[in-house]
């Protein structure tokens, strides 16, 4: 990675971290409802992969832990926060919520709440790319536990069979809610599972963004050059609970501490400081600026935005009636 990119990405990762921490606070204040899954600890995964890909050009799909993926694809943090607040100005006009952020303009194809659900959708997006003949790829970010769904295997088989341009990124944070991977999955290293489908795969440290970036570059090149699907496994850790109602009784504080010593933000920060590209004071200034931006713009926007109108409750269930008239009521052609 170029030094300028590293600095920019560090700034982005600080935004991603502080955004999520601010969501935590807003949830406690009951400004955000429903389920809320936060991303701290895993920032190098999304950032490393998307630095190697083309955000806004490539199609990205993921699960319910989706705020950062949307922002990285180009979503305005204000709209993501407004969505969490359930406002009309939100990414999905307040109809989706935390688990269903969408941004079609930036080709962020959404967050989905059914574990494993996005696998075949990603392959379908890749199929559409194949039919239309573009140079985009589909990137599917999901967790380790999602690989125990049947559609994981069904999708790998079809993606390989039809040589689809899809990159599967497994963010292996070792847990599916409160069940450790050793207790749910016969194979801890997920990339081994795809060998059976003749799919190229690699595994690497998911905390060091430069390592992720290098592996992702190879993976993205492979897919974009028409060689078919690729499976990239990133070994990572989420610092917070699975969602907001999680007392983390299934893991030890010592284990958490070990992973916190490999904080993806600090790894990059310390490397830049060591290379004399920035100082600790610079970093602290970035944090301050970021917090001010989140407070003065992001939160303010979400707070001040209007609620959806109750009259619009049934909007978006079906396509706009007028446009569909020939097929709904006849008189076509």
């Amino acid at each position: 990675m170029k030094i300028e990119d590293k600095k920019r990405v560090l700034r982005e990762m600080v935004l991603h971290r502080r955004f999520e921490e601010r969501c935590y606070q807003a949830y406690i204040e009951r400004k955000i409802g429903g389920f809320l899954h936060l991303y701290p600890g895993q920032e190098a995964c999304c950032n490393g992969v998307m630095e190697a890909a083309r955000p806004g050009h490539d199609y990205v799909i993921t699960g319910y832990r989706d705020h950062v993926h949307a922002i990285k694809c180009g979503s305005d943090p204000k709209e993501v926060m407004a969505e969490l607040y359930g406002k009309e100005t939100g990414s999905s006009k307040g109809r989706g919520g935390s688990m269903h952020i969408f941004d079609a303009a930036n080709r962020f194809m959404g967050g989905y709440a059914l574990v494993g659900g996005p696998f075949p959708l990603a392959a379908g997006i890749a199929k559409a790319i194949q039919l239309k003949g573009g140079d985009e790829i589909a990137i599917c970010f999901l967790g380790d536990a999602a690989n125990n769904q049947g559609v994981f295997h069904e999708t790998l088989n079809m993606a390989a069979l039809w040589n689809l341009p899809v990159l599967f990124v497994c963010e292996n944070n070792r847990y599916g809610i409160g069940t450790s991977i050793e207790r749910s999955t016969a194979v801890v290293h997920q990339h081994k599972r795809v060998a059976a489908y003749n799919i190229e795969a690699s595994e690497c440290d998911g905390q060091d963004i430069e390592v992720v970036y290098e592996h992702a570059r190879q993976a993205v090149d492979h897919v974009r050059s028409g060689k078919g699907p690729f499976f990239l496994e990133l070994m990572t850790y989420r610092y917070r609970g699975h969602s907001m109602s999680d007392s983390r009784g299934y893991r030890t504080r010592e284990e958490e501490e070990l992973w916190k010593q490999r904080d993806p933000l600090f790894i990059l920060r310390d490397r830049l400081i060591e290379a004399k590209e920035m100082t600790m004071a610079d970093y602290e200034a970035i944090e301050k600026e970021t917090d001010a931006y989140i407070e003065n713009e992001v939160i303010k926007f979400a707070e001040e935005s209007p609620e959806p109108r109750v009259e619009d409750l049934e909007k978006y269930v079906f396509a706009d009636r007028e446009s569909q008239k020939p097929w709904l009521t006849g008189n076509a052609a």
Partner: protein
Amino acid sequence: MAQIMLWEAIQRAHDEEMARDPLVICMGEDIGVAGGTYKATKGLYEKYGPLRVMDTPISEGGFTGLGIGASFLGIRPIIEIMSVNFAWLAMDQMFNSAAKIRYMSGGQLQAPCVFRSAGGAAHQLGAQHSARMEKVFMGIAGLRVVTPSNPKQAYGLLKSAIRCDDPVFINEHELMYNMKGEVPDAEYFMPLEGSEIARSGTDVTLFGYNISAHWCLKAAEILDKQYNISAEVVDLYSLSPLDRAGIKQSVSKTHRVVIAEEDEAPVGVGSEVIAIINEECFFELDAAPVRVHSALVPQPYNHTLEKAAIPDHEDVVKAVLKLFGKA
């Protein structure tokens, strides 16, 4: 106007739409090289090739989800699920992805895909190959459900379903693919909403759809000839949404109602039609509506038991006679 079989009507709709629009594709088990379990995709593989006529692995959840994902980018997949009994495996994707995508994305994405599947009791196929499942699909917000009772409807409904921007489930019947009927030579689009008066009458309304529309027609014939009862047959080819106005109009004319369905009674088309009558025109009724439906049992293999489990036109006649105090 040509007399063609129902499978030919479906094949023609595929062919015309695929010739018109390169974004229309079809997929399913055995639909390509093998030509389709019920021949509905015969000849398409040779004409449009493997990229657009996809023989899928036996992965209903997977390939249904794949088709839905492709539809997010404007592809119009016609997804054939060999038997409706296998659709259970695809329902997560149909309901959670296709039906909800427009709403939960605030109108940004849509899933303009068509799901076609053969249901119904054929001959002694047993418990796991005889299900009627329209009731399962009918109650899902964001999903349209239609069900053809003849070749003309099969052709016109598929044509409209492919063009429509909403996901549409087309419920076909295993015993009806070889049924013959007239289909206009000119391109024709059947509205996805509404109902059709298949036979006009004044004394009682028989509501049916798909195969049960034929029981109703046959029953109406018998009622007319042998009992001098004039039955109106309303074909509810759109199951979601049901045609409230059409139901109200016919009931307000005949004041008596029988609903025939091959499905089991609980939470079914019959209960829904009765609920609509209650809401729209309860005081038009001269008698309590009657449902004709299957027994609530897993379909038995034994021929005699199977026959006992599934109703037919005679049961419709009996229900009407009872309604008129003649049985």
